[in-house]
């Protein structure tokens, strides 16, 4: 029966992708690689990123929010463990200095050289500074990076007046920032109106009035001729093209941006006559091994896009092409919605009315600073528009671009009381309407989800400029609905009460009697099934359900881990964690684990939970492995379940010179008492033999620390991403008092917590917090304690080892096959390669076209 894996050595060295520039688009590109399984961690290419700035990618779009208190860390676009998780090599503060296209290498400033198979340039733009005399005087700045803002902030401490050169989008933002720093602020714009690119004349006029009312001085139609400086070299003022002079202590140039294409020029890539690295529809440059994306690229429609949404589309295009799929970027629309200095400004589609024969429908109110214009085609289709002062309708109007409006356009621009506005709710939009233009997400895709966080996570909608969030909120089920999921309007704790008081022992019964109207009689979903399965399991003795989680209907409710009583790994194999209560194990048992691992060719590792994990078993091997383990006296460790994991211990009084109680024995007793207890999230515990706390009990859901007089019980501790130290619930308890209190605490938690809510989050959420919990479980303020203890006694009595039950029942064993029609065939996709004298998953055989799998011929869809 020993099975040894067939090691297949890696054949080819994975190709290397080098990314130059870790800005917004560079990061989006890395995420797209990860989504397509192209990162090293997924068995894809080696990925190297050269980042010039001293910090990884951050949200440049919201740069200005630094001045309203957002820290540079909060602006970061990179999840904390993103690079490690995906195995990406990021070199911060080390820009690329040269590219050798012939040798396919990139050399960085620090002298590192990387060979590449694919090079991706995402170098962004640099701010254009007009070549006026004095432009380099002390006190002249640009507005592009966090470092620029830090420098401006510092210099502004000694300045009184500031001037911004440029009245476009960024210039107005910079002006707002200067004003926020307490400076008398001027805006100098060469064009006859503000934001000439985005808004038309009428919009510019409305904007001007509002901005002047805020105390900013605007000078349009004049250029900057010179920056004047004092003898110390610091700015004193500006000379303007109309002959006037402006006294100022600080100047911010915001006169547009230019693509950073120098690196590309130096290595002979084609660049446009006015800059920008020439790319085709696949975002490939004139060298097919080199891509350019974001603001540094000159897209195939001949434009350089200075907005993040088109950049993101290019990132997705390049990643799609590199993945071997088909993707193209042929241009994007320049719709924007901004809140500039508190004024809403939006433009979309053909905002300037360039189409032939189109008509404008305009509403302007200079007192309130509102200007709205819709551009309507000859056939009545909406072509575009400009909204200033009140851009609430942007979210619904932009997606309607290209369609004939369902109501007369004037009704949409007139204010209430003047025959309008007809509020066109987002419900009137077609499913194909693009709601989030930054990430190109449609209404249909958004409506698949129930909450904004879910939408952001799954579709990325709302994670760019954020202007679509309002409409997304309107499209989603309203949040008063605290229901568990689309199937149940009740919370988890309400369902627990229903199951407990009505004695419901079947999911189908609960769904049909207490589900939402449309969900009754249906299939439920992946959220409520395991949740209800867990509730029924933790109440099994009380409601008369089988305590065995795979009995009857319960089998269909469990997540795959519970279903196979093992943990699913990335290649479809499983890991096995036998219970080792308190971390104490005899040499004989250690030997059995070693023998089993050797005979089945499993990878072994000591876990962070004081036990041993055996990795790499196929489904059909699980019963064989467990037969050996059960024979040797092992039980399931429930590493797969939302249930008690481990009770860790320190060696304690028996051996340790400091110990004051037998921490090992207590840990074993507690682990055996609560093993198999199903709960809203996993439960962990530890027992330390003295206050030195070697078992890290205060990082656990319930942690016990020995005292000279007994035990201190701490609750609500957590490791993981948001660590929390447990709080003291009660002191100097005897053994019996300790156990009774934990019984009550756990059952109260199981009864009232939400799905996937650890005790730490639960304690922070419930009204009254720790004091309330102490009242309930120590002082019995709700008169519940008898019942809580009874429920726990029922659990302890009813506990049976799931694996022993399983291997003794042929009916249950039948599901442990890879293929229903070939029970003896092993899974050909589960293979391993050697590493450090053990095995690891062979991910190469899982690789391949990860996206766009074609439907098999001859099959209906």
């Amino acid at each position: 029966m020993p099975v040894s894996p067939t090691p297949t050595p890696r054949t080819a060295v994975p190709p290397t992708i080098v990314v130059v520039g870790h800005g917004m688009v560079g990061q989006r590109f890395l995420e797209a690689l990860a989504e397509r399984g192209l990162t090293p961690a997924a068995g894809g290419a080696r990925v190297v990123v050269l980042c010039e700035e001293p910090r990884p990618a951050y949200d440049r779009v919201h740069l200005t929010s630094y001045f309203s208190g957002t820290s540079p860390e909060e602006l970061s676009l990179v999840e904390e463990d993103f690079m490690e998780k995906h195995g990406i090599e990021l070199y911060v503060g080390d820009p690329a200095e040269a590219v050798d296209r012939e040798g396919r290498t990139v050399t960085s400033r620090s002298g590192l050289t990387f060979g590449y198979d694919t090079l991706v340039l995402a170098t962004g733009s640099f701010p254009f500074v007009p070549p006026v005399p004095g432009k380099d005087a002390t006190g002249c700045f640009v507005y592009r990076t966090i470092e620029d803002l830090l420098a401006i902030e510092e210099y502004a401490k000694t300045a009184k007046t500031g001037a911004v050169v440029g009245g476009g989008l960024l210039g107005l933002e910079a002006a707002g920032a200067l004003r926020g720093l307490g400076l008398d602020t001027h805006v100098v714009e060469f064009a006859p109106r503000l934001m000439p690119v985005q808004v038309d004349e009428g919009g510019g006029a409305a904007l001007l009035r509002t901005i002047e009312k805020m105390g900013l001085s605007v000078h349009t139609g004049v250029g900057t001729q010179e920056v004047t400086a004092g003898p110390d070299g610091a700015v004193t003022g500006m000379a303007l093209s109309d002959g006037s002079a402006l006294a100022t202590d600080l100047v911010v140039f915001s006169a547009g941006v230019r693509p950073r294409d120098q690196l590309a020029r130096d290595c002979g890539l084609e660049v446009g006559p006015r800059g920008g690295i020439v790319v085709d529809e696949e975002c490939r440059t004139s060298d097919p091994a080199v891509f350019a994306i974001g603001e540094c690229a000159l897209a195939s429609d001949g434009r350089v896009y200075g907005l993040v949404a088109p950049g993101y589309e290019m990132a997705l295009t390049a990643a799609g092409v590199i993945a071997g799929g088909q993707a193209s970027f042929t241009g994007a629309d320049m719709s924007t919605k901004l809140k500039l200095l508190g004024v809403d400004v939006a433009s979309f589609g053909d905002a300037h009315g360039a189409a032939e024969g189109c008509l404008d429908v305009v509403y302007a109110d200079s007192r309130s600073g509102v200007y709205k214009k819709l551009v309507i085609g000859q056939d009545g289709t909406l072509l575009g528009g400009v909204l200033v002062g009140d851009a609430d309708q942007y979210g619904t109007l932009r997606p309607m671009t290209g369609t004939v409006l369902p109501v007369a356009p004037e009704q949409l621009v007139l204010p209430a009381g003047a025959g309008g506005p007809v509020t066109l709710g987002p419900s009137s939009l077609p499913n194909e309407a693009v709601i989030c233009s930054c990430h190109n997400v449609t209404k249909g895709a958004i409506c698949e989800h129930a909450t904004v966080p879910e939408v952001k996570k799954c579709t990325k909608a709302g994670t760019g400029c954020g202007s679509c969030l309002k409409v997304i909120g309107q499209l989603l089920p309203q949040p008063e609905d605290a229901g568990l999921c689309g199937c149940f309007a009740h919370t988890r704790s309400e369902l627990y009460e229903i199951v407990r008081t009505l004695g419901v022992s079947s999911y189908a019964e609960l769904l049909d009697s207490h589900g939402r109207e449309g969900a009754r009689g249906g299939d439920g979903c992946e959220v409520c099934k395991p949740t209800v399965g867990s509730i029924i399991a933790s109440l099994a003795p009380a409601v008369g359900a089988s305590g065995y989680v795979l009995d009857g209907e319960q089998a269909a409710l469990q997540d795959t881990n519970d279903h196979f009583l093992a943990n699913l790994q990335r290649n479809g194999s499983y890991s096995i964690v036998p219970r080792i209560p308190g971390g104490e194990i005899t040499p004989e048992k250690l030997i059995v684990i070693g023998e089993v691992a050797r005979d089945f060719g499993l990878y072994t590792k000591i876990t962070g939970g004081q036990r041993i994990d055996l990795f790499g078993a196929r489904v059909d091997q699980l019963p064989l492995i467990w037969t050996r383990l059960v024979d040797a006296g092992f039980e399931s460790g429930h590493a797969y379940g939302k249930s008690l994991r481990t009770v860790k211990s320190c060696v304690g009084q028996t051996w340790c010179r400091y110990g004051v109680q037998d921490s090992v024995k207590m840990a074993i007793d507690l682990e055996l008492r609560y093993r198999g207890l199903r709960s809203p999230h996993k439960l962990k515990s530890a027992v330390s033999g003295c206050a030195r706390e070697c078992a890290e009990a205060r990082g656990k859901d319930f942690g016990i620390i020995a005292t000279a007089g007994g035990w201190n019980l701490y609750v609500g501790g957590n490791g993981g991403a948001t660590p929390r130290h447990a709080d003291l619930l009660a002191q100097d308890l005897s053994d019996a008092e300790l156990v009774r209190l934990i019984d009550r605490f756990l059952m109260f938690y199981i009864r009232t917590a939400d799905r996937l809510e650890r005790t730490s989050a639960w304690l922070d959420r419930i009204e009254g917090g720790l004091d309330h919990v102490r009242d309930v479980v120590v002082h019995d303020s709700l008169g519940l304690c008898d019942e809580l203890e009874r429920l726990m006694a029922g659990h302890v009595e009813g506990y049976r080892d799931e694996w022993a039950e399983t291997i003794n029942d042929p009916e249950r064993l039948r599901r442990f096959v890879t293929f229903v029609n070939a029970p003896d065939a092993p899974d050909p996709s589960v293979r391993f390669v050697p590493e450090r004298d053990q095995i690891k998953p062979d991910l190469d055989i899982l690789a391949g076209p990860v996206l766009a799998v074609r439907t098999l011929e001859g099959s209906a869809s």
Partner: protein
Amino acid sequence: MTTTTEAPATTAMLQLLSPEGWFTVCERSLLTPGRGVAVLLPDGGQAAVFLDRAGRAYAIGNRDPFSGAYVLSRGLLGAAAGRPFVASPLLKQRFDLASGACLDDDGVTVPVYEVRLTG
């Protein structure tokens, strides 16, 4: 892609249409409503076959396109707007059982196979 028989007879068999034609997978009774099983196809490929609560059968490719692992048969079934889906056991993306379309990532699909219950 979906077919239902009125009264599932005890010997009802499940069949799947592969490029080589219909072939018998197993007895229907081997499937648990709400869960799936993996099927080895004549060409060495893998399909995931499911029964929903109403006893309707569906089959899609077993490979999870996000991880490359052949595990979709081990996901949980559910329904969104009346359409059944399976949620991948690895990273929980959902796939419509009738069309193979991923509900959480536009443009990603898995193959769909025609299945029927006979006997």
